[in-house]
């Protein structure tokens, strides 16, 4: 095992990992605002990719991506308004089942609209075989786009929640909904905003990653599971930690291929999830207090 090969595995791992991290961050945003894990988060990623592919048939690529993201954000808002908003203190069980139903619904709708075929966006720069090489290690330029985009998203979120008024209002709502309302914050609006944000970043991730892989009507499910693993690994609700968690999961998965058959790659990820849930539900970066889950949203 030369150093160059090890690096190559690491690059693969970080590539996988960045993809999962975005899903995890999306989970985190909605969870922070509502206490709900939105199982349909993976579908936002799928939608972004699918819409962008359809749009770029008659729009320049950057515009297509922009519109795909905007439309998906609209869908996110719609989902919240139609299905989540008017529920009165639903139990966690009910919410889980509802978002699972939403996930299935969106998936079948995608099947109806786009059929069962696979789609890919064209590479943002270069093409399928272009690679930036450092010695014996080769990286597709699109990977840099993925990492760059994820980095920008995380930076944006940190700034948003840390420095802007809106972001702080959302955090207030997450901490204590009733107190926030007493301070005049539009709690309902914050919830909608959280869905819009989560949908937006999911869609952007879907666009930036689809040249490397592909999107299909059922791409969302697998992403959701991996994304949740990362969210739990990184401490639910913490963007930067989710990024760290994503990289860890991606690298572990990638390196596991050295010893195990590649068909068991998913088993590794899930075994990791189970181990974390059992031993340290707050995740590697979180703290035990945040692990105490709310019974009602």
């Amino acid at each position, binding site marked *: 095992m030369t150093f160059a090969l090890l690096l190559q*595995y690491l690059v*693969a791992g970080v590539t996988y990992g960045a993809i999962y991290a975005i899903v995890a961050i999306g989970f985190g945003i909605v969870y922070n605002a509502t206490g709900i894990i939105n199982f349909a988060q993976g579908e936002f990623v799928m939608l972004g990719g699918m819409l962008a592919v359809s749009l770029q048939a008659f729009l320049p690529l950057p515009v297509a991506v922009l519109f795909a993201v905007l439309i998906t954000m609209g869908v996110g808002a719609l989902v919240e308004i139609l299905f989540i908003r008017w529920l009165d203190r639903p139990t966690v069980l009910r919410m889980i089942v509802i978002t699972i139903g939403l996930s299935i619904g969106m998936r079948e709708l995608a099947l109806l609209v786009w059929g*069962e075929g696979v789609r890919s966006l064209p590479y943002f720069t270069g093409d399928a*075989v272009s690679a930036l090489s450092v010695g014996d290690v*080769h990286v597709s330029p699109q990977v840099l786009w993925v990492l760059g985009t994820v980095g920008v998203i995380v930076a944006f979120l940190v700034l948003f929640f840390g420095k802007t008024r809106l972001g702080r209002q959302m955090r207030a709502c997450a901490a204590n909904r009733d107190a926030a309302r007493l301070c005049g914050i539009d709690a309902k609006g914050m919830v909608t905003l959280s869905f819009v944000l989560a949908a937006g970043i999911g869609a952007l991730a879907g666009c930036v990653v689809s040249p490397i892989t592909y999107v299909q009507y059922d*791409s969302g499910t697998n992403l959701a599971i991996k994304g949740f693993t990362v969210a739990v690994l990184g401490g639910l609700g913490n963007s930067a930690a989710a990024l760290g968690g994503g990289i860890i999961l991606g690298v572990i998965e990638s390196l596991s291929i050295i010893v195990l*058959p*590649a068909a068991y*790659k998913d088993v590794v990820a899930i075994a990791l999830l189970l181990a974390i849930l059992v031993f340290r539900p707050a995740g590697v970066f979180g703290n035990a207090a945040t692990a105490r889950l709310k019974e009602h949203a």
Partner: protein
Amino acid sequence: MNRLPKWIVLLGALGLAGPAAAKETIKVGAILSVTGPAANLGGPEARTLQMLVDEANKKGGIAGYPIELLLKDSGGSPEKAISFAKKLIEEDKVFAILGPSTSGETLKIKGIAEEGKTLLISCAAAEAIVKPVGKYVFKTPQNDSHAARKILEHIKKAGATKIGLVSSNTGFGKAGKEQVEKVAKELGIEIVANEVYEKEATDLTAVATKLKAAGVQAFINWSIEPAQAIVLKNARQIGLDVPIYQSHGFGNIQYVKAAGPAAEGVIFPAGRLLVAESLPASHPQKAVLMKYKKDYEAKFKEDVSTFGGHVFDAYLMLAKAIEKGGADREKAREALEGVQGLVGTAGVFNFSAQDHNGLQMDAFEMLTVKQGQFVVLQEGAAKKDAPAKKK
């Protein structure tokens, strides 16, 4: 005793004679995986079959028998296939069942078809479907063993002795893997890296890295999913410049499009449907292939694939059986076993009581990708199998 007036008797006789002149409708069942994990097989198959049946019915059916198509989407689940097979055979009493799309499903309903004495013309590739031969069970795709042999003989001729093998964890991938391993041993080719990946894999860089680490001189990818495009991209990206061979599952231009320049120079065996235009006019398959290609692409605005071709061939077999044996199942079945020289998309079929597949190794043509198009591989052409590295 009442004596009916003569004219009533006459009218009655005419009444009976009338409908007897038109032929009865033949019910044909189809179990295809239109959705689910094998949708890239069942989708084109379902569309093709619907197109063919509609076309036939416009002309009065097959040999004058109108065809009623009962199409069921099994979603790739064997338990659904079993349930539908039983329903179609016992309740709807269909004349024949076309499909299923996957080997796993076919193997589960083989016994049901035999017990129900109903023709089963499968679009799945596993050899176990027709070995041992079931009286009523036929299959249309070429044998994996022939594909594997064709690939490995080419590899041997090119002088490679250490190769890599990657396959997906589907029935198709597994069957191919077994065949390649068997034939490679026979030909003295060593498989130094042997990996199975999940069919939904979206990034196979790690697998490609493993191949590179093992120092393969060529590698074979055996899968029918979009992953076969991804493995090409990943392999070329990390600088693995060896010749790449695909299975006949590569037979859909969308995978070439998905892989872009990474698909250049890939070699694979396939039915001649993909290069129909470049066939000489005298080739026995040309007319059939061109017609299917034109009709399908005009109607569904997507490229033909060899998968849709499997059900096309199944339909041809059904039509031939009905033409020769009429609506009687036993006669039709026997007639089918005697069919020779049936020109289909996968090749020219010659059946017998022992051979319910009817294709040999020559059903395959070795194809390659040049400038994003499928072309016949010219032997003795320049050995430049890898695209120029872009710096």
